[in-house]
C-alpha cells in the first residue's frame, strides 16, 4: 500500500490487488460489534443514569447507521475506489479518511470482543491462526497507514 502524491486536497492511495480485496472485505463487515449494553459511567453518581445510557445507545446506533451508509457509498463510488491493471486505487477527501479510520477501528475492537476480549494479544498471536486475530492485524495495518498519511508521516510517491 502506498500513498500517491496528489494534486489537490484528496488523498490518493495505491493498493495491491490482495490489499484492495482485503480492504473491501474488512469494510463490508462494518458494523461488526456484537450487541452489548452501552454505559456512560462506571461508578454511577450521574443523574438519570438509565436514561443517559439509553441515550448513549441511541447515539451509537445512529452513528453506526450513518457510517454504514458512508461505507456503502465509498465502496460503490468508482471514482473513490476502483480496480485497474495495477491493483486498486483509493481516492479520499481527508475527512473521509478520518471516518474510515474510525470504521477500521470498530472492526478491530469488535474482533477483539468476539475473541473474548483477551488481555494478552501477544499470547493470541502465538496460537493457531484465528479469523478474528487476523482481522485485528489487518485492520491495524490499514489504520496505521491512514493515520500516518493524515499526519504527513507517510510522504506520497509519484503515481505509477
Amino acid at each position, binding site marked *: 500500500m502506498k500513498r500517491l502524491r496528489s494534486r489537490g486536497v484528496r488523498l490518493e492511495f495505491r493498493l495491491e490487488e490482495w490489499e484492495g480485496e482485503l480492504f473491501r472485505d474488512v469494510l463490508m463487515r462494518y458494523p461488526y460489534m456484537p450487541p452489548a449494553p452501552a454505559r456512560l459511567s462506571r461508578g454511577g453518581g450521574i443523574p438519570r443514569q438509565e436514561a443517559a445510557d439509553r441515550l448513549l445507545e441511541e447515539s451509537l446506533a445512529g452513528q453506526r447507521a450513518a457510517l454504514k451508509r458512508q461505507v456503502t457509498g465509498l465502496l460503490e463510488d468508482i471514482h473513490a475506489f476502483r480496480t485497474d491493471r495495477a491493483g486498486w486505487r483509493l481516492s479520499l477527501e481527508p475527512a473521509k479518511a478520518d471516518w474510515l479510520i474510525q470504521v477500521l477501528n470498530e472492526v478491530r*475492537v469488535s474482533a477483539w470482543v468476539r475473541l473474548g476480549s483477551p488481555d494478552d494479544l501477544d499470547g493470541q498471536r502465538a496460537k493457531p491462526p484465528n479469523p478474528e486475530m487476523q482481522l485485528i492485524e489487518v485492520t491495524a495495518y490499514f489504520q496505521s497507514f491512514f493515520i500516518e498519511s493524515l499526519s504527513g508521516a507517510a510522504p506520497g510517491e509519484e503515481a505509477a
Partner: protein
Amino acid sequence: MRTGRHEPRLDTFHTLAYGRHMVVLARLAVIPRPRGGGAPRLGAAANSSGAQPGTVTEVDPATKPAPAREPGYLVICWNDPVNLMVYVTHVFQTVFGWPREKAQRHMLEVHEKGRSVLVRESLEKAEHYVHVLQQHTLHATLERDE
C-alpha cells in the same frame, strides 16, 4: 424602641421612629463599608433571607458564602489492550483539538496508569465527549467530580 448606641446584629428586629411612623427593620445588619465602597444594597438579599419587601437588608461580602464550585464531571479514558496507541492519540487530537504532544501525554497515561482524566466539564459537555469517544470505540466514561 431602643435608644442610644447599639450594635445591630443580623436576625434581630429593630424598631425605629421615622417621623410619625414606626418602622420595623427586619434582619438589619450594620457593617463597615468596604474601602471606597458603594452604598448598601437595598433588599438585595431580602428574598433569600425571608425578609418582607420594604425592609432594608445589608449583606456582608465577607460573610457571604463563596459561590460553590460548579458541579463537574470527569471524562475518563480507560486502558485496553486492543486500541493502537497511534489511534488513541489521533482520536484525542481530533475530538479535543489538542496538539500532538498533549494527546500523546494523555495516551501514555492511559497506557501506563490504566486511565487518564481527559477533561472536567458540565454534565452535558461531558456526556457529549463520552458519546464521541465511544463512537470512536474508545473505553471512555464520565464520573462525578466529588
